Every structure is written in C-alpha cells, then in structure tokens.
C-alpha cells in the first residue's frame, strides 16, 4: 500500500522478508561516525514502520521532535517485559524478563520515581563538579603510564576505559586494594571479543563483589555514594543492583565516547586545532561529540495506550524504537548535521535521552570528557592514528557504538 521498502533504505535481507524493514545497522560503507545507511530521517517521515528482531511490527522514530515527544511521554513504557527488542540479543530470551532489582532503566513510574529520587541528589551538577579534581588526577595517571610505555598505545585500554572505570570506583567507594581486580573483571565483562562464557564468569564475580561491597559499606561507611545510600530504606540486594546499574550504564558509554571521540577529532584536524587553540571550547566540544556520535542507541519504548505522534497512530502494545543518533542528525534541528562543528551549539541533542529516564550520570560524563579530551591532546600534541582509519575495528554489533581498540602513536620529545 503506502509502504515503499525502497524509500526506507532497506537491506537486501529485509527486502526479501514480509513487512517493513528491520533497524538499519550496516555501517560498512562510508564514514565510521555516520549512522548506518538508511537510518537517518527522510525529511518528510519522522517515524515509520519497523520490524523488530522477533518479527513484531513496531515503529522507528528518526525525527528530533518526534523522538522528544515519545521519550517524554509517560504513555510510552520502559518496562523490558513489554518491549520487543529492536535487534537480536544473543544469549537473551526472545521475551525479555522484567528488570532485575536495581535496574531502573527498565521501570516506569511510580517504582522508577522512587529509586530515581534516591539517586538524583547524588548526581547533581554541583556534586559532579566537585569530582573534577579526581578526574584530573586519574586522567594524569593514565597519561603518565601511556607516556612511559609509548610512543604507541591502544587508546581504549590505556585511557578511554580506565578513566571512567576509576571514576565509578570512586563513586562506589571501591577500596584502592581492590581496584585492579575490579577493573580487570569490568574489562572482561565489556570485552567485545570475549566468549559468552567468560563474560558470564566476570558477571558472577562482579555481582559477588558488589554484594560484599554493600555489606562492607553498611559495616563501615566511607565517603561515597554507596555508603550514603545505606542510610536510605534500600535493601542490600537493591544497593548491589544499583551498583551494577551504575557500572553497566556509566562505563561502556563514557569509554566509547572517549575512544570514538578521539578518533573523530583526529579525523577532523581543523576542529581539533580549534580545540587546541582554545581549551575553553572543551564544553562545546563535548556536546557536539555527544550529538555527532550518539553512542547509546537505540532507545526502545512500548505504547501503553493508543498515542498519536506527528500524525501517525501508534497502537497499544507496539514497540517504538527511538533512534537518537538519527534524531541528532535531523537537519530540521541541526543544519548540516553530518558535519562535526564544535561551534554549532549542539545543546538540545538527545544523546543522553529525554524525559524521566534522561541519563542520571550525564553531569559526571560531562565532567569526565571535559577534563579528559583537552588533557590528552595537551599531553601529546603530535597524537595520531597508528593505522589507516579504515583499519580501526568498530563495535558494529553492540548497542553501545564505538571502537574496539584505537592504535595511536606520537613523537617522543
């Protein structure tokens, strides 16, 4: 009928199967920073039909205004058990179970509100800015180690991963003696090349560790978020779950922004020069990289009732897959959207989501990136890729996009 498979940039695979196309994920052609082919918004179609991994016919939202409308509307649920996963999730059952204890991303109000209220006070702009010095300290430590081992490094292992990992340790109050073990388990959990089994082991070890950590903080509170939360009415199980959530949501995201962001800046030397010339541009650089890269994508929701969005009727039960990376390239909101332009004023991007679930850790992520990028480029003025750009391995099959490794080199003084 009105549905035209060629208009939505379908893959060959999707075109041969009944119904609308699946979520475009193919980045093999073209720029590693651009959304997959066919994902961006056709200017006249901010939302269109989409087939989920299990065959469910839902919606794909690519327009900026439509994405804001869906994400801020409580008639769209975040509960995992109501969602049809937009892409296949290896190792997970087709029908998702409800959110495990502490995972507030998969909850709706009022349960979500209860947890969120307990947490937001710990993540205010003011509190996160107070952590600036700690971020500077860890950043300098990583850069020192990199410099000593240089003049080559894998920027992901040497810098992009440890900086956010150490900040999560700081938040949770992981004792120094445990940090190395903690970090290696975390690295195993997020290793894109690891077998499912090795990941399972790392997951078990980390859960076990978080349980122990909660008991230790109850017995002997220290100056950190987990200890603070022991005075609330949260159970040990809830506290450990929240610890796991902060790890899951705060580490891979920030690490990939640092890794892919460095790659993007090195690939846009005029923009990098602008940042080097004016370190005060760091804040704007971070916002524009968030918009341009939108590493956490897509964000799914399920309609709890019939809702009209930009003239289309979404029916009760349908899954709406919001692509913030497409929305952040909507030319009606960001002119010339495929250009990395540090001066554009990228605020209003949806890289942290929108609505009641908008990223809880965004002010920490901002502080981390605002410190880390300028420090990296100040320490290594000649930093460059050590391999041709097309050889940088990309995380194609993950719901957090980024680089698997980033081989870099620099001139020794």
């Amino acid at each position: 009928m009105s549905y035209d498979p060629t208009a939505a940039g379908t893959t060959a695979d999707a075109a041969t199967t009944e119904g609308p196309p699946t979520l475009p994920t193919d980045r093999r052609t073209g720029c590693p920073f651009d959304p997959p082919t066919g994902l961006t918004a056709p200017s006249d179609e901010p939302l269109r039909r989409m087939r989920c991994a299990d065959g469910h016919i839902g919606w794909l939202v690519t327009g900026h205004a439509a994405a804001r409308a869906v994400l801020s509307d409580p008639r769209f649920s975040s509960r995992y058990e109501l969602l049809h996963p937009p892409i296949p999730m290896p190792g997970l059952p087709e029908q998702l179970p409800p959110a495990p204890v502490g995972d507030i991303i998969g909850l709706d109000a009022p349960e979500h509100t209860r947890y969120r209220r307990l947490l937001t006070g710990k993540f205010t702009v003011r509190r996160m800015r107070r952590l600036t010095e700690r971020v500077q300290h860890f950043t300098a430590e990583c850069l020192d180690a990199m410099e000593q081992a240089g003049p080559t490094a894998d920027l992901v292992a040497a810098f992009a991963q440890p900086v956010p990992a150490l900040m999560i340790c700081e938040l949770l109050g992981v004792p120094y003696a445990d940090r190395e073990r903690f970090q290696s388990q975390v690295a195993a959990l997020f290793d894109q090349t690891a077998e499912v089994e090795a990941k399972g082991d790392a997951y078990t070890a980390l859960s076990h560790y978080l349980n122990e950590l909660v008991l230790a903080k109850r017995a002997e509170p220290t100056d950190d978020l987990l200890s603070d939360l022991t005075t609330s009415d949260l159970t040990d199980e809830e506290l450990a779950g929240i610890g796991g959530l902060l790890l899951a949501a705060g580490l891979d995201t920030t690490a990939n922004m640092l890794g892919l962001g460095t790659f993007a800046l090195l690939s846009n030397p005029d923009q990098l020069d602008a940042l080097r010339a004016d370190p005060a541009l760091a804040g704007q650089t971070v916002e524009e990289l968030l918009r341009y890269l939108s590493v956490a994508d897509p964000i799914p929701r399920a309609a709890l009732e019939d809702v009209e969005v930009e003239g289309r009727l979404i029916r009760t039960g349908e899954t709406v897959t919001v692509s913030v990376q497409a929305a952040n390239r909507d030319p009606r909101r960001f002119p010339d959207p495929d250009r990395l332009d540090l001066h554009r004023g990228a605020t209003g991007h949806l890289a942290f989501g929108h609505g009641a679930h908008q990223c809880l850790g965004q002010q920490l992520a901002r502080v981390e990136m605002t410190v880390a990028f300028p420090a990296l480029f100040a320490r290594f003025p000649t930093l460059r890729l050590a391999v041709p750009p097309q050889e940088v391995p990309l995380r194609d099959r993950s719901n957090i996009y980024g680089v698997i490794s980033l081989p870099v080199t620099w001139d020794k003084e």
Partner: protein
Amino acid sequence: MSDTPQPLLLSVDRGRCAGAGMCALTAPEVFDQDDEEGLVVLLRPAPAPEHRAAARTAVGLCPAGAITLDPGEASGRLRTES
C-alpha cells in the same frame, strides 16, 4: 535596548522534575538543585535581562517539562521589577 530578551516569569514543578540538572547547567544564576533529591530549585523567578536567554534555553532543554514560562504575568511583573 532592542536585543534585550523579553521579560519572563518562571515557575517550576518539583513533582515533575527528573533531577537531570540541565537547568542548573544551562542557567546556574536562575536554577539550582537541592542536595537531598537533586530536584530543581528556582533561584530567580523573574530573571534579570542578562539571564533571560539562558533561562529560556533551560525551559526548552528540561527533559521533564518541569519549568514553565508565564509571559502574561511577566509584563505585569516588569513594572514592579526594580
């Protein structure tokens, strides 16, 4: 002055606030967050001209629709503003 942003009167709904801090980040002279729950605190309901543009941006950025502009009131308020 032709480039002075229009006067405005703001109100906030802490019941809706998601504590994301976009307001305090964007217009720190106008909005803050309390230390307990991280919810919005309106420091200046009728911001001075130099803070109005940032305040308007914050209204647009708030993910929870917790900040509202009341331009009708604002013109009345302007007369009492010193």
